[in-house]
């Protein structure tokens, strides 16, 4: 890349303490072509328009997930290999690994978990209502998805609190001020080799390996057993692939939906007429769930790397250039959304990118997340439970995860 116009800062973690820098993104989107964003020793192309994000996602050969890294920074070769997960692979490895777990997450099979999800949601909402409110993240948004994903994976639900704790540390690893000591959780691995450079990744790897050993000697009807069996027979999954896949399933299975549920509650508190509308409708339709997802945009960006010289929105992109898709911007693209900064539960079409831009890396847990959100809203509606926000949220200073650490809500 050379002499392209430069993007305003959208990566400094501190910016995100105030939320997504929408003003900067609007400026970026209004600029014809792509802007170049300086970063560390180099930089990346800012892909912000809905159409451009889709174009990048839909061309996985041209815009690779396996080259470099899917986060902003590059990894040394050994670190990339040690940390490579289903997220940082291309076909055919991606296809092979994904097929091992895809069936669990198809719409039909996810429906089988509706009752379990409803039971957990009811328990959490009943408690929250009885107490008249509290920290929505800690009491509802975090425990719901972690308990559901652990049930699906076959991980003891009694370990939910420990895994949420690890997950919190992993998110912290995406900020510029992680607090864990390098040897926390008994870690002896070079932090470079761990996802999010976090000792909590070591702990999660260890946990997954111990559980895998248990399932090998005493197989169960669960996902972890299926994965360790795939590892045993015919080398369909290497030990490193198992470790990283387990890590992704636990982390992505709870962190992202928790973030969506946190932003969802804040959105309904900010736009109470939209909750009233659902009360009048008496049901939670797909448009409400999709709008909540658009609004929340739990994962703010993913990076790809160009494998050949090409062009995007008229801007030449060179082989090896980093190309970063900002879902946070595309989900507010005025070319696609009327009143993009309004939360409107009745949007007829809503092709948001909260599950990615629609390529092969489309979120594995998309149908699970949708189901969890729908059930939670249904049960809130059943209880005639509206929320009022009584504190500013504590946000995560991360340009990658749109995280909310806590937000006080009152039941009204």
């Amino acid at each position: 890349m050379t002499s392209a116009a430069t993007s305003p800062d959208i990566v400094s973690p501190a910016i995100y303490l105030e939320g997504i820098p929408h003003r900067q993104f609007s400026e970026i989107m209004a600029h014809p072509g792509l802007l170049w964003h300086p970063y560390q020793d180099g930089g990346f192309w800012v892909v912000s328009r809905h159409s451009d994000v889709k174009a990048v996602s839909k061309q996985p050969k041209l815009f690779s997930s396996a080259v470099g890294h899917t986060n902003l920074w590059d990894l040394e070769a050994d670190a990339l290999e040690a940390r490579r997960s289903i997220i940082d692979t291309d076909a055919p490895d991606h296809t092979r690994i994904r097929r091992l777990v895809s069936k669990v997450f198809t719409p039909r099979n996810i429906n089988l978990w509706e009752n379990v999800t409803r039971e957990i949601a009811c328990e959490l909402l009943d408690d929250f209502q009885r107490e008249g409110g509290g920290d929505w993240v800690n009491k509802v948004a975090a425990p719901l998805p972690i308990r559901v994903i652990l049930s699906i994976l076959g991980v003891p639900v009694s370990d939910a609190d420990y895994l949420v704790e690890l997950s919190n540390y992993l998110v912290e690893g995406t900020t510029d001020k992680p607090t864990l000591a390098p040897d926390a959780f008994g870690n002896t691995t070079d932090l470079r080799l761990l996802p999010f450079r976090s000792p909590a990744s070591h702990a999660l790897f260890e946990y997954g390996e111990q559980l895998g050993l248990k399932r090998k000697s005493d197989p169960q009807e669960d996902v972890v057993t299926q994965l360790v069996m795939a590892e045993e027979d015919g080398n369909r999954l290497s030990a490193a692939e198992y470790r990283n896949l387990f890590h992704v399933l636990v982390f992505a299975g709870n962190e992202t939906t928790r973030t969506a549920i946190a932003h969802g509650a804040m959105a309904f508190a900010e736009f109470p007429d939209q909750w009233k509308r659902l009360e009048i409708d008496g049901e939670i339709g797909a448009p409400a769930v999709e709008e909540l997802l658009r609004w929340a945009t739990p994962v703010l960006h993913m990076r790809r790397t160009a494998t050949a010289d090409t062009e995007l929105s008229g801007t030449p992109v060179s082989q090896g250039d980093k190309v970063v898709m900002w879902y946070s911007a595309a989900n507010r693209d005025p070319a696609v959304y009327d009143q993009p900064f309004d939360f409107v539960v009745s949007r007829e079409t809503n092709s948001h990118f909260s599950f990615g831009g629609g390529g092969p890396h489309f979120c594995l847990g998309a149908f699970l997340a949708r189901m969890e959100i729908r059930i939670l809203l249904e049960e809130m509606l059943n209880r005639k439970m509206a929320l009022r926000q009584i504190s500013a949220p504590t946000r995560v200073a991360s340009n990658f995860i749109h995280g909310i650490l806590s937000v006080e809500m009152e039941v009204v």
Partner: protein
Amino acid sequence: MTGWTRLGLDMNRCVGVGQCELLEPDLFRVDDDTGTATIVGEPVLPSQRAEAIVDQCPSGAIQIDNNINPTLPKLPDTD
């Protein structure tokens, strides 16, 4: 142009998301053993719908099958 379009499945690409089964359960089903989609019906749809299915398949496995020209009755009300 309106009319009918036949869809095909590139099995090398399919990652088993299940979007096709969700959209057209009579035509597609994800096989629980292989984790990939299978065609279970006659995969011929009004062209506009077929294009939407192609667009919404994340892996690009569902493609328009140009090799076969479906001979089907003319769609009602298409002029």
